[in-house]
């Protein structure tokens, strides 16, 4: 009998983060803390990042991940957590149908 699918996501960022740590990689976890307006990912969504900039998960629909990864590499180096705030209100993005026009706050912390 196959085992029960234990988790709520096939590509679960927190499971991946645990695996990375076990491989000896340095890891940061970014978490959506607050949203206003039409933010694409809910509070609690995770992006996990390693020191080389590899990442899994998402904190937006791809709009701000690049910036979060860059900040996360700093957080891994310094060890100090950061709160990032993004306004996603680009006219072009809106016209091509991205769910933007919202703002999100993302907490980035080192896993240590």
């Amino acid at each position, binding site marked *: *009998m196959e085992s*029960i*699918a*234990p*988790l*709520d996501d096939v590509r679960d960022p*927190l*499971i991946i*983060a*645990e695996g990375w*740590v076990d491989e000896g990689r340095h890891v940061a*976890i970014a*978490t959506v*803390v*607050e949203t206003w307006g039409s933010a694409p990912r*809910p*509070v*609690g969504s995770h992006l996990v990042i390693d020191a080389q900039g590899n990442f899994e998960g998402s904190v937006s629909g791809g709009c701000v991940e690049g910036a979060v990864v860059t900040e996360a590499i700093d957080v891994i180096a310094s060890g100090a*957590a950061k*709160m990032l705030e993004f306004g996603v209100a680009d006219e072009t993005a809106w016209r091509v149908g991205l769910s933007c026009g919202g703002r999100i*706050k993302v*907490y980035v*912390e080192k*896993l*240590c």
Partner: protein
Amino acid sequence: MDIAALKAMNEERRARRAAVMVTDLDDGTTTLMRENAGAGGELGRALAKAFATGNSAAVEADGRRLLLNTHLPRPRLVVIGAVHISQALAPMARIAGYPVEVIDPRTAFASADRFGDVELYADWPETVLKERPLDAYCALAAVTHDPKIDDFALKAALDAGCFYVGALGSRKTHAKRVERLLEMGATADAIARISAPIGLDIGAASPAEIAVAVLAQVVRAFRTRGATADAARPAKGEAA
């Protein structure tokens, strides 16, 4: 977040237990909270809400800015009976986010021809549920009409504290079922949790419509867990 807390939380999640990771946004410390851990004050109220809704949230509690990151096990809908209703219920429920497992020892019913890629167990509930135990994040719908197949599963669902237990059959059929469950050692309070006749009363007539009624009742039961008993339990005028 410290690695030990992350591992502890993933362990809870793998074991299908609800957990909330509480992060203090001012000093960065993390604490793993399990359900019914007995936290009081504003944090206790915020945690109760997190466990009930499954939502994560940033909150001000007891003078601290906290992020509550909530992880509930994904609900499983276990259907006893590979019947016409189940053929309709399985795809609908999967779309709604309630993956279905169908159990029926009658191999003529529990066939891949009839169910495609639905998770199907052509065996007795006694056998399957031993391997795949029910828990508080399971819903159980017994729809065979056959006490030999349904009764054990219903008792198991009550014992496991499944968030939803429903049984197909008329009021008369259910009255006899109540007698049998009492003989099996279920308490009257536990038996009162069974939604029977099964499904919200939407006047469902066809097997597919009954499936809609059952799915709606499962969703309501899940979304009102821990709310007032009245909301979670079958009220007047529910039938199928």
